[in-house]
């Protein structure tokens, strides 16, 4: 699969027989054993592997849960409780699955931020990045539909709000919403189709993951220096080097996962979802799952009409735009240097972007209250002005991609790049050794 020629040589007679007919063992050997990876990958690069095991974990627990779940509005809530109470280890399966979704998103956010930090989307990895964006979109759809299945209050009202977004689209909006719902309101047809799609989409994710990994193996991995692999000394074999490092990171991630599953399994959920859905009783605050909160904040930040676009359509456009903009990141970044390690200004704006994204998430959990950006800036309404902060944060979110990325690449003076990965590694180790030997070594020479 990778650029180089295969080094696989089957030893046994059976191995040769299979290799001549359907060289699957060769594919596995070339992709996961001999495959060369940069020697300087840090732990931020282990989240791809972590995401792979999370996908497998979600599919396995999900398939077993589906054996006990009933997609019917009168039975769904009770069938989930039956799993929690009467199915052997049912509580474990369900908590693994519901918390697993959150862990999946934590891992994917770190994975995406890593890509943004090290410039992993830059040529020739644009398709690799776009395939990742598609996986993320599919994950959002899957997570949303999964949250509807227990048929609690937040399931029902979340589904009502989110499918309501589509009515903002001119002309075809109502038709799309009715197609999604299977009727005029969230009801049994909605639950049935969401269950069918929630079961289908993970396998589509798995399909795109195969393409994502394929694209990765064609262009090779980036690395913290952002310099392409130039010689054999720049790389190590995937096995044992990457395997064991990924393995260690996976075990640490599972520890984190276990903490939530076994000790605070409802921490990331909403208490209202333990109340059976009631179409006649709207919860005081409808909030989506935590992983959608930044986008929810962006949606609600648009409280004003822009020409012919009313605030509702504007909010929906901003929300979808905030994800759509990820797809064109490879062409927004004009920098010749790939990694933030050598871009002091980009590094600063990147970490501001991370803080801004977390802040947007918190704002998404607040009620849409406050006078907005103008009263925030000019009337000194600092407290409780959630709409104002959301507008400010939304501005930075889009500003980062649309203004900072293209402009910074043209005006920023990057630091000196090493000639190769090997040189960077040796330089770093020398600096590290120097520091150990005496306190005189200048710390800023360290990468």
């Amino acid at each position, binding site marked *: 699969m990778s650029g180089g020629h295969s080094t696989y040589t089957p030893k046994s007679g059976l191995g040769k027989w299979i290799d001549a007919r359907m060289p699957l063992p060769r594919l596995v050997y070339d992709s996961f054993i001999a495959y060369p990876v940069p*020697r300087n990958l840090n732990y931020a690069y282990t989240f791809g592997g972590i995401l792979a095991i999370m996908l497998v974990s979600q599919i396995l627990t999900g398939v077993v849960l589906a054996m006990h779940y009933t997609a019917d509005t009168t039975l769904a809530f009770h069938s989930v409780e039956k799993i929690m109470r009467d199915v052997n280890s049912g509580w474990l399966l369900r908590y693994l699955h519901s918390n697993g979704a959150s862990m999946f998103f934590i891992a994917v956010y770190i994975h995406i931020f890593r890509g943004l930090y090290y410039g992993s989307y830059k040529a020739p990895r644009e398709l690799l990045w776009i395939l990742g964006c598609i996986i993320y979109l599919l994950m959002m759809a899957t997570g949303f539909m999964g949250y509807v299945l227990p048929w609690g209050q937040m399931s029902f009202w979340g589904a009502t709000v989110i499918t309501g977004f589509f009515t903002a689209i001119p002309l075809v909006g109502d038709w799309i919403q009715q197609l999604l719902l299977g009727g005029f309101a969230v009801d049994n047809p909605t639950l049935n189709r969401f269950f069918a799609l929630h079961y289908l989409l993970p396998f589509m994710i798995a399909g795109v993951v195969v393409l994502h990994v394929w694209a990765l193996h064609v262009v090779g991995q980036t690395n913290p220096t952002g310099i392409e692999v130039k010689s054999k000394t720049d790389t*190590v074999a995937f096995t044992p080097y990457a395997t064991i490092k990924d393995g260690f990171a996976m075990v640490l991630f599972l520890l984190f996962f276990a903490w939530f599953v076994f000790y605070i399994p409802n921490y990331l959920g909403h208490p209202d979802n333990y109340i059976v859905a009631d179409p006649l009783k709207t919860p005081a605050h409808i909030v989506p799952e935590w992983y959608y909160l930044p986008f929810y904040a962006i949606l609600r930040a648009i409280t004003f009409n822009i020409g012919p676009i009313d605030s509702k359509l504007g909010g929906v456009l901003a929300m979808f735009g905030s994800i759509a903009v990820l797809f064109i990141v490879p062409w927004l970044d004009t920098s010749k240097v790939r990694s933030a390690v050598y871009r002091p200004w980009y590094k600063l704006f990147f970490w501001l972007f991370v803080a*801004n994204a977390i*802040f947007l998430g918190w704002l998404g959990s607040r009620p849409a209250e406050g006078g907005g950006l103008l009263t925030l800036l000019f009337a000194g309404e600092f407290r*409780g002005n959630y709409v104002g*902060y959301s507008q400010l944060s939304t501005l930075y979110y889009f500003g980062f991609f649309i203004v900072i990325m293209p402009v910074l690449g043209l005006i920023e003076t990057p630091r000196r790049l090493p000639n190769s990965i090997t040189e960077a590694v040796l330089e770093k*180790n020398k600096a590290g050794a120097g520091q150990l030997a005496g306190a005189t070594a200048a710390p800023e020479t360290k990468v």
Partner: protein
Amino acid sequence: MNKILKGVAAASLAFACTLGVAAAAEEEGHSAAEPTHFPIHKPAEMDWSFAGPFGTYDKAQLQRGLKIYREVCSACHSMELVAFRTLEDLGYSEAQVKTLAAEYEVEDGPNADGEMFQRPAIPSDHFPSPYPNSAAAAAANNGAVPPDFSLIAKARAVERGFPTFVFDIFTQYAEGGPDYIHALLTGYGHEAPEGMEIAAGTHYNPYFIAGKSLAMAQPITDGQVSYEDGSPETVDQYSRDVAAFLMWAAEPHMVARKQTGFSVIAFLILFAGLVYLTKRKVWSAVPH
């Protein structure tokens, strides 16, 4: 390793900055007479035997809580997801559960004549509801349907607010439900602040999660239920006991969950150590 530390430091710094701004943006308190956010008072954090990584249910307490539910709450509140057979978790024998179940009447049928009939409950039955349907429940309670109690301890939790919700991850705080139930039951009997209007037929309780007052009057008073084990017969004690019982009703496998969790986490820590040492050995000859 150094790089990870730097990465983690940068990430935490970004997180801390965010939260600093969040704290500044957090809302101020509300006026006493016209509060806009509920509950007016946050519930106190109680000591629960089932809190923390090694928490277990106190069976005597659960039995007292069951007594409160049966003698007081069950007059209005159903608990339809809980089967009598599961009461063996509270330390009752099979025979005791059978006797207890038989004290209830449940509808069964149809019989050979096509008639529905009443019969004594058996352990596989669930607690029967006090009202035939929610319309009847509403009619008997001034329009407010008393909520089902099977999951109430997980379906109610007062928002913790920033920064407490961050610390809760590390302290494993998961007792928001029982804390709320205890606070609500002991929260009656206060005078509403001057100028506050209380809707007719409702009762002021500053711990109520969804408003100034609720339809339920103070349900239990000192000495109302007698305890055989010498525990104090006070509203405070009753509230603790019924809150603990309702936590069990909502999460009957909690103890098994925490015990499994300990083994899982102990194994993973050990395994992580071994994998780390292997990783170090594998990479020892390669500068990276």
